[in-house]
């Protein structure tokens, strides 16, 4: 759920989607403590409602000019105004660090997950599609199920890599 909330706030071009997601979950938790349970909506839907309110508040703060620089989003900014370090020409050191963290995080995966995720992203274009079809057949999965399994492993890796890259 937290990840969904982060993605939601990120799609809304909020600068601090993590903070907003945490804010949302805190409010939901606080509501549960106050009322004991949420019966009229599903928990996920309730989270959406709260997230929507949090986003609305975020926008109101921005309109009032009360938002700090760190809360301002880059939405609408043209490509040219996006920091160059994020235009795909990232520093080589950052790339190397990311690769090193990726290797470390891959080694933390179970062997089966590691092999799956590496094989899933091995080829390009037509060969990639054919390889994934062979993998699905070999594992006894549908293509959709295989993509979901790969997506979950990838999400796990991505979180690990970001944590690793933030380490001093």
């Amino acid at each position: 759920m937290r990840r969904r909330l982060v993605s939601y706030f990120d799609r809304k071009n909020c600068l601090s989607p993590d903070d907003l997601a945490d804010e949302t979950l805190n409010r939901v938790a606080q509501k549960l403590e106050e009322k004991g349970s949420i019966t009229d909506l599903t928990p996920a839907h309730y989270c959406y409602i709260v997230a929507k309110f949090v986003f609305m508040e975020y926008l109101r703060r921005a309109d009032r000019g009360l938002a700090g620089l760190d809360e301002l989003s880059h939405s609408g900014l043209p490509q040219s105004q996006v920091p160059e370090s994020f235009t795909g020409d990232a520093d080589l050191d950052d790339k190397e660090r990311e690769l090193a963290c990726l290797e470390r995080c891959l080694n933390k995966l179970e062997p089966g997950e590691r092999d799956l995720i590496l094989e899933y992203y091995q080829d390009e274009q037509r060969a990639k599609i054919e390889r994934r079809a062979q993998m699905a057949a070999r594992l006894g999965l549908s293509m959709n199920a295989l993509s979901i399994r790969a997506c979950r492993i990838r999400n796990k890796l991505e979180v690990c890599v970001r944590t690793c890259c933030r380490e001093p």
Partner: protein
Amino acid sequence: MSSLGKQTYDDQVLLRYLLGLLTAEETEHLDELSIADDEFALRLNVVENELVDAYVSNDLSGQNLEQFKTFYLSTVERRQRVAFAEALRVFAKGTAAAPSRTATLSADVRVKRELSQGASPGPMLAIPRLRLQWVLAGATLAMLLAAGYLFVQNYRLETQITEARAKRIRLDQRQQELQKELNDQRSANAQTLNELERVRVSQTNLDQLKTVSLFLMPQTRGATGVASVSLHPGTDLVVLLLAVESEDFSAYRVTLKDPATNQVLWRSTTLASVPAGEKKAISVSFRASLLKQQNYIVELTGIPARSAPELVGGYPFRVVLK
């Protein structure tokens, strides 16, 4: 709030949602699903990963690419996702190529190192190499043997050719000799035939010759009469029988002379005496054309074995031509 009924999600709609290309109402609806619908959230996650992967693989184009750059890459979070996708892609490709290349490189390095140090490449490679050496050695030996055999055969054949040529020359020479002998024999045969023919002719001629014979006694003292012989025209031979009173000699010779001039008109070969009744005689014959109408004398000479010839006697006679 929108109802969250079961529905299928079009990936193209999700793609447009991620690129900010939907209307506000559509966007809000999918915003709600992205949090409240587990299946939708999962599918959206997959579509977003595929979108980012397409970008890092340079598979985006047109409006999608432009929108990705201007809209999707506008937040730090999403740029970090792109960076991660790039790293994962690089790592996955490197892992796919690395194992075989590394193994090949390791094998090559190991083999090259060992070969440079003079060591054998290992038992697995030594077996084919040893077998190859034996095969080469066997092939070399076989070639040498074949070459030696051919050399010997060649020498033998050359010797046979030389001998055959020499034999041919000898045969040619022998043929020439035989041919010469044959020719000589033919020539001799021809001469013999000619001689035989001549003799035959002669014999025939002899059978047809006209002869006159005369028996003569040796001249003695006081004898007054001289035997005469008449020669008719056409007389071919004159045959004289010379009586021999003693056989002191085994061989005789006869000479025809003109007593007036003592000229030798005819001389015989060596003759032997022939029986003439109770006595012996010497028979000589000569052409009648030698004689004229005159007196002649025939001298008989005895030829001893070891001494000089001796005059035995003279036999005069007279020729009358008719």
